[in-house]
């Protein structure tokens, strides 16, 4: 089945040559990765910096993200707000995102506008203005973003608190958006220092996917990014998380109706694409538990036992820092978080004792294989996949190999990781304890006036 599908893929997709994507490295150390995709006359251009919240220190949480906002505030040649104006005039869409591991900027444009985007992006890589007045306005915007995403969002708050407890030494304990107090005390000089430290070509890579010729893009990259000077990066300290020795429990009170349970187990991530086995087996375990509506969690806990309104897992096998395998859910009416916790544990125990069926593995493989084809429908998604692997210290070239490795996982390996990583010693449990919106009534009363 695998062979036939892959063959069909080769025939159907206009892959110019087997080398696609193509890559080169500029003299200043900046890597350039280009994937030709000629389906439509558009292109996505991204520049990724290996600087995320993982690189922040205490007292300056949220700095990577604040700088992302400041990157739209102009250079000597481009006024504040002018960047987005130029992208819009080119018929483009632009934005940026900050994660634990990286900060990335992108524009989606008609293909003939790629050069202008590269020119703009190269300009702000080394020539940003960090104006104190602009900073003073923008930091307020970021605080509003924090209120919206976290402070008024009970489930996000729970995850923020979970991470703050699950990690003690490693910077993953700090929220990407930053603690409010750190935002309140951040200065334009902090943002400037961050920019000077990390925004250099040797800490960046460009990803382009679209209707382009890679040689032409390489030339443009040399023209616009090639002249920027590289600089030695600060030392990155490992800040290794000590071995957790015993379960940790937290609860968060917030205005809500339903409780929520999150169980996070420390788990490995892929460091050596070829030698590692366990992260792939954990990915397969995730697919068997929660890969589709009638996978084990949905079928047994939501549908059959009706213990939960919803259940899920979250596991990312690639990251710069340490990994976590999360189980989470919301109990059904009349059930408690304790009931749900027992049930989630029960599903892990079942796999520890009985293993998984070959049919489950086969089904997960079929879904993974199909997803490989569906992902080609999105240029943005393809660029994200390339950039994501690179951000975790792997290569985009590893993506196909990593998928192959998941396909090769055996039932015994799934059982082995279920036994190995789901111990109480490395567990952090968080519960959302729902509170009424005010001290008295549970439901708000609407008053209307003219």
């Amino acid at each position, binding site marked *: 089945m695998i062979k*036939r599908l892959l063959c*069909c893929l080769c025939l159907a997709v206009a892959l110019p040559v087997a080398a696609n994507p193509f890559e080169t490295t500029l003299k200043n150390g900046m890597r350039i990765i280009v994937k030709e995709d000629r389906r439509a006359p558009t292109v996505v251009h991204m520049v990724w910096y290996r600087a995320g919240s993982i690189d922040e220190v205490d007292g300056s949480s949220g700095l990577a993200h604040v700088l992302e906002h400041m990157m739209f505030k102009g250079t000597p040649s481009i006024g*504040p707000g002018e960047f987005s104006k130029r992208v819009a005039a*080119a018929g483009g869409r632009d934005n940026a995102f900050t994660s634990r591991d990286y900060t990335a900027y992108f524009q989606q444009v008609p293909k003939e506008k790629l050069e202008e985007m590269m020119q703009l992006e190269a300009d702000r890589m080394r020539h940003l203005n960090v104006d104190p007045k602009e900073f003073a306005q923008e930091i*307020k915007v970021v605080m509003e973003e924090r209120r919206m995403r976290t402070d*008024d969002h009970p489930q996000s708050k729970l995850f923020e608190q979970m991470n703050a407890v699950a990690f003690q030494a490693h910077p993953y304990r700090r929220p990407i958006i930053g603690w409010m107090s750190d935002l309140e005390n951040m200065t334009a000089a902090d943002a400037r220092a961050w920019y000077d430290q990390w925004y250099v070509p040797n800490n960046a890579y460009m990803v382009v996917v679209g209707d382009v010729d890679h040689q032409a893009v390489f030339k443009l990259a040399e023209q616009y990014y090639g002249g920027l000077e590289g600089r030695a990066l600060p030392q990155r300290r490992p800040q290794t998380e000590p071995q957790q020795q015993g379960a940790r429990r937290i609860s968060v009170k917030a205005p809500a109706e339903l409780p929520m349970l999150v169980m996070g187990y420390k788990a490995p991530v892929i460091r050596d694409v070829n030698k590692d086995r366990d992260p792939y087996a954990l990915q397969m375990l995730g697919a068997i538990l929660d890969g589709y509506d*009638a*996978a084990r969690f949905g079928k047994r806990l939501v*549908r059959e036992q009706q213990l939960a309104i919803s259940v899920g897992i979250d596991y990312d096998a690639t990251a710069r820092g340490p990994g976590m395998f999360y189980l989470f859910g919301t109990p059904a009416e009349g059930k408690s978080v304790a009931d749900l916790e027992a049930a989630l544990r029960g599903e892990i125990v079942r796999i520890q004792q009985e293993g998984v069926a070959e049919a489950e593995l086969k089904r997960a493989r079929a879904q993974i294989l199909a997803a490989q084809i569906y992902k080609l429908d999105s240029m943005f998604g393809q660029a994200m996949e390339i950039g994501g692997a690179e951000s975790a210290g792997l290569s985009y070239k590893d993506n196909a190999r990593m998928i192959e490795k998941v396909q090769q996982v055996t039932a015994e390996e799934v059982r082995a990781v279920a036994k190995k990583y789901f111990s109480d010693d490395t567990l952090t449990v968080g519960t959302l304890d729902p509170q009424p919106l005010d001290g008295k009534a549970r439901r708000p009363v609407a*008053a209307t006036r003219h």
Partner: protein
Amino acid sequence: MKRLFAIFALWCLSALALAGVNIQHWTTTGGARVYFVESSALPILDVQVDFAAGSMFDPPGKSGVAALTRSLLDLGAGELDENAIADRLADLGAGMGGGADTDRASVSLRTLAAADKRGPALELLRLVLQSPRFDAAVFEREKARTIAALKEALTRPDTIAGRTFWAALYPEHPYGRKTSPEELAALTREDLQGFFQRYYNVRNASITIVGQLSRQEAGQLAERLAASLPAGEAPTLPAAPQIGKGRTGIVAHPASQSHIYVGIPAIERGHADFFPMLVGNYTLGGGGFVSRLMKEVRDKRGYAYSVYSTFAPLRQPGPFQIGLQTKRSQAGEALKVVRSVLDGFLREGPTAEELAAAKANLIGSFPLRLDSNRKILDNVATIGFYGLPLDYLDTYQQKVAAVTAEQVKQAFARHVRSENLVTVMVAAD
């Protein structure tokens, strides 16, 4: 392999008359409307079947029927129970999606295009449309889950603001009716079956097909899908919404931010003022980082992370809406700024420079609207469902280019009357 997709074969940079997509349209023997775009670059097939079966057709006192009916379709059909359907789809690497909004209930299928995959996947789609089981136990469980999720949503300031806003805009129209835990609790399985029998029929269906398939295969596919549906009759639309007096609704909530909505029922799909509204709204609050609202509320004052204006043309006049969230202590000030930006725009319309910038983006970004099968499917399904002209995409850029500042001003004056605006604030001090 051709360098360019067939659908972009007519692409020409110098002309404004760009071909959108080549939509082939026909009607099945039974009368279902079919819209087909052949797209052979990827071995993928997308099929979406849309019915005029959204929440606007919920019978009075039974709000929530449309959404629950849709959600139960693929949870058991014919001989297959909900798990058997999900297992078979997963085995095929296929996925079913869709949902119900105010106007439309959709069932969509994405499958690999290879015959041994798409054949069985399409049979599952047919089964789900033809003979959903509405199993009693599944119905009770899904009802309980829906009620729980709604109770949770009703604690959220954004949900409360949205529901209050729609209720205030549409006091006498079904668009304003939102379901409650109590109404949901009173629903029966027979309510869902009755709704399904009334609205899921051939006359009420449009079928959109995008992917690696020949015209002949698409014809057979559509015929087979449509043949599984009863003939039925088209829905009766409620009386158009009336525009009431302007008013302000305040809802107490402990959130740290106020959620503010300002708006009014505006235009329906296919309205002659669509393009002037589209171009004008880009300048006011639709154009992301470069809109007037963004500049005044976010960039200059740091009042909000997100502030926008939008208008949603529906089967009947859908809302024009401005939305933002801001620290509750400054909600009053932020609202003043919003009103001043809106009033200024209504008074003067866009400047020549703004008009040119709006057109440049809307025209220039057109290829980005159609650069994946998924986007093509969304666009074509909307054209089909609302009966928009088949050349809607082909003429899109020309129509944007032809809009004048005066037309924008007049269209906004007609549809966004200051004195009729409804304002909703949740969690304001």
